[in-house]
């Protein structure tokens, strides 16, 4: 016996297989961030100095720049998913929740684009 309602069946509604998508992407980005974030923290802490030339020459490396872009994108995505859950759990006013979720989504896209663009500009354009 099908548990779906006749209306649901005729409209083609029902599980689209996307119910766990949020949960799954949060996990995938979490797994990716384990090595990426450890790499960033260790790299930053082992830079000999934080002056402009030292950092720019470090970031100019192909792998460094690639990993930094990956980190910025993955962290932005993971952060957006996390903040979304926090807003959904603690903001009970519907209007405020919608505005908050939108602001969070926009901010995270801005962070992701600005961060990636900055790394690429340093690595390719070398503003030295």
């Amino acid at each position, binding site marked *: 016996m099908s548990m779906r309602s006749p209306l649901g069946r005729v409209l083609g509604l029902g599980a689209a297989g996307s119910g766990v998508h949020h949960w799954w992407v949060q996990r995938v980005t979490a797994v990716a961030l384990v090595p990426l974030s450890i790499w960033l923290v260790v790299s930053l802490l082992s830079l*000999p100095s934080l002056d402009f030339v030292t950092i720019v020459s470090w970031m100019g490396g192909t792998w460094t720049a690639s990993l930094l872009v990956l980190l910025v994108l993955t962290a932005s995505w993971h952060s957006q998913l996390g*903040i979304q859950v926090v807003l959904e759990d603690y903001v009970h006013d519907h209007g405020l929740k919608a505005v908050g979720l939108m602001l969070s989504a926009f901010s995270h896209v801005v962070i992701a684009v600005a961060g990636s663009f900055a790394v690429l500009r340093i690595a390719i354009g070398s503003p030295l």
Partner: protein
Amino acid sequence: MRQRPLSPHMTIYRMTRYSLLSSILNRATGIGLSLGLIALVYWLTSLARGAHAYVQAQAVLASLPLKVFYALLLAAFSYHLVAGIRHLVWDTGHGMERAQSQKSAWLVIVVALLLAAALIACAFRAREGV
């Protein structure tokens, strides 16, 4: 609107058991790390705008309040990393028994504290300014 039955909420749980606190701390540190991401991107964009802009940004980035923020950030990173790995282990279906999760909660806090101490010591000893 009709009053509907609610699932058990925060106030009925005992924080002394730590297991619940470990979950809330994971959220709090996650929010902190989101702020850290903003700082990271600000740092990257100031670098991309050239040497002069970077020197100006450094006045802000190397200020005392932000140094405190970096220390907190390293602590938040340590906790969120270790607690996050615990979550990933749970996702495989392991360690979910009550006794196991109590034990892993303590393991998380001890490892996170050690890692945080090591990272902060390293950050503030290696050179002037984080």
